């Protein structure tokens, strides 16, 4: 089975801290995605990557950046965490952007205090 692993289930960070969320997939997928999920708003796409060192903005990239130095790893970076970035963060991967389902990690619940 494809596995997408997110490094932390729960994180508590202080306002202004730089935060790294890590995601690793083990199935050689080309495409990786970062979403945040908030009650009533559903999943919203932050960034995605279709190849190593390539990235594309999603619907809500402000306040975030990403890094993909290796095919299996996609990192989400909060440059200066703010309380409105408290959320559930979900990583996903897919063999192709089109035509396949996405495999999600279990999520990281980030609280910024």
């Amino acid at each position, binding site marked *: 089975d494809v596995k997408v692993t997110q490094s932390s289930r729960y994180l508590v960070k202080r306002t202004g801290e730089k935060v790294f969320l890590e995601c690793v997939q083990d199935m050689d997928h080309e495409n990786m995605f970062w979403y945040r999920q908030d009650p009533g708003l*559903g999943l919203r796409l932050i960034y995605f990557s279709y190849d190593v060192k390539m990235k594309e903005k999603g619907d809500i990239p402000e306040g975030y950046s990403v890094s993909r130095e290796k095919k299996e790893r996609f990192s989400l970076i909060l440059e200066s965490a703010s309380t409105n970035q408290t959320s559930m963060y*979900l990583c*996903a991967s897919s063999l192709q952007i089109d035509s396949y389902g*996405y495999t999600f990690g279990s999520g990281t619940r980030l609280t910024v205090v």
Partner: protein
Amino acid sequence: SQKIEQNSEALNIQEGKTATLTCNYTNYSPAYLQWYRQDPGRGPVFLLLIRENEKEKRKERLKVTFDTTLKQSLFHITASQPADSATYLCALRGMRFGAGTRLTVKP
């Protein structure tokens, strides 16, 4: 702007009945649409994908339809079971998700 809406926040049904969930979209012509299941505190799990040239797709007790004229997809679970209780999400090409419908199947 592109919108995707699941018009029921919650749906309660009796065990054994068919659950029908609706997904509507606007200002978009997706090549395909996906459905996912999400349990509390977990990531979504992919269930089915239906392409624009497919009217219907089935997988065991699940059935999805796709009407590009109405801009709507219906997701059916037949002979529902309490274990089917979860939140179900539709997604346009994995890029834009609906807020989900929380299904509760009562014994």
